[in-house]
């Protein structure tokens, strides 16, 4: 169960906003996290408490394929991102590095910065504790559930290569 305060953003938060390419030579998530959102919200890294949640409207993570985007969010201490929709590369990257990303338009519409949310990743249930409202996120497709339960893409690769390519 995840519990955290909300930092809310608008639509089309791009990867240059999440982590500018000038930090692309950094690999440590915590160091990357210090520069997360720097271009659009310079105080973000100071504001975030471990476990906090980003809520954004549509097309979160559009732009570059840089995997340091979800890594920096995770490194900043964010526990999960809830949006109406995600850019497709960002979505894959987030799953691959273990940053939970949930699609739920109702939760986004009914959540403000500072609200306290509780998220049950196994059921997809999102509770806005500040407003006393409960929402249900769109479930992951079965294929992606399978990847997650295999322990992620790298573990999945190890398994299929060990079994000689059999799935």
């Amino acid at each position: 169960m995840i519990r955290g305060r909300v930092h809310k953003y608008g639509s089309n938060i791009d990867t240059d906003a999440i982590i500018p390419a000038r930090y692309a030579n950094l690999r440590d998530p915590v160091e990357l996290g210090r520069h997360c959102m720097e271009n659009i919200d310079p105080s973000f890294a100071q504001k975030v408490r471990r476990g906090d949640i980003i809520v954004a409207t549509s097309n979160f993570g559009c732009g570059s394929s840089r995997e340091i985007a979800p890594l920096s969010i995770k490194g900043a201490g964010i526990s999960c991102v809830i949006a109406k929709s995600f850019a497709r590369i960002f979505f894959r990257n987030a799953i691959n590095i273990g940053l939970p990303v949930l699609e739920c338009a109702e939760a986004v519409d009914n959540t403000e910065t500072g609200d306290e949310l509780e998220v049950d990743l196994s059921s997809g249930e999102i509770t806005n504790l500040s407003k006393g409202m409960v929402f249900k996120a769109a479930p992951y497709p079965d294929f992606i559930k399978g990847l997650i339960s295999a322990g992620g893409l790298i573990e999945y690769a190890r398994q299929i290569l060990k079994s000689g390519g059999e799935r």
Partner: protein
Amino acid sequence: MTIVEKIIAAHSDRAEVRPGEFVTAKVDLVMANDLTAGIAVDQFGKIGVEGVFDPKKVVFVMDHFVPNKDIATAEQVKRLREFAQAQGLIYLENVGIEHVVLPEMGLVLPGDLVVGADSHTCTYGALGAFATGMGSTDIAFAMATGEVWLKVPPTIEFLYCGKASKWVTGKDLILYTIGQIGVDGALYSAMEFTGDAVDALTMDERFTMANMAVEAGAKAGVFRVDDRTLDYVRARAERAFTAYESDPDAEYAQTIEIDASSLEPQISLPHSPDNVKPVSEVAGLRIDQAVIGSCTNGRLDDLRLCAEVLRGRRVHPRVRCIVIPGSQRVFLQAVREGLIEVFLEAGAVVSTPTCGPCVGGHMGIIASGERCISTTNRNFVGRMGSPEAEIFLSNPAVAAASAVTGEICHPEEVAKP
């Protein structure tokens, strides 16, 4: 089926695929660059295989921060160079920008399925290939297994009719399109570009259009293979390839018609590629810098267009004009055609090929309060430097003309036909 569906089906041992299906597909080429290969190599190491699935199908291109801009980059590139050598990969450093170089070398051919750790990998759709950007971990998976998982995208058809006027290029068609549908207008979908107006485009212009498909959220942007494509690839191909065409009864999620004949050159205003207006509505805004280059507009046709505007003219004294050929081959040909001389005589600087300023890396970073017109693909806050700077996206002729007058203008203001 559409082109995209046919290519995915052919690479996943299926007779047919439908939008929304998940498939595991074999890849013909896997690419990563100096910004993304580092994590891919780390993740590849965790998989625990000794070698990549096929070293002749894995290519590392050092292009974003090269020639190495600082010690951190030099160390990163050194590590990637060593990995590539040990693995026997195709390794390209100081050759040019990945999306200019790979087609140019014939490494991507029609019908291929290509994945790259760079969002603009969709550029290769110009060749009638299915090519899409992914993150480093997905690329590590592909390096190890030769496969990727894909959700088959629905295809949206963009049908361009009419004859575009002088100074209206493929860049203008794609900027206009993104302006119409928005930066998430093709989210999770493939864009297929059709119609007389795209048949008339040069290959370089098609690369530009496919390149920016991701700016509408698309997974791929594709063109059918025609005589122009075949001329381009036959001069380069060293293996067999397949040209796919969408069936007459292919199912498109939507068909959007665009009249190319009615368009002016287009400008994308800060801070989103979909904030698009015709140049006449933006004309007169003072600029500090003009950048002509990148994986979007750093090819020979782009430099020729730029030279057509700059020939015999001078860059405005207030403006820094930076021209960056997209590859060494483009650079050399530009030298042979006398284009570089035109740029230098006009007062522009010419850089060795690099992604450089487009990604805020080096070779033309902008300061707070500055305004840059650029032929690149993104004008997000802080993309090219200071978060307090403004980026306007345009075609190369508009950027060159604006460099001459010092303010955003239509090329015909400068280069009277």
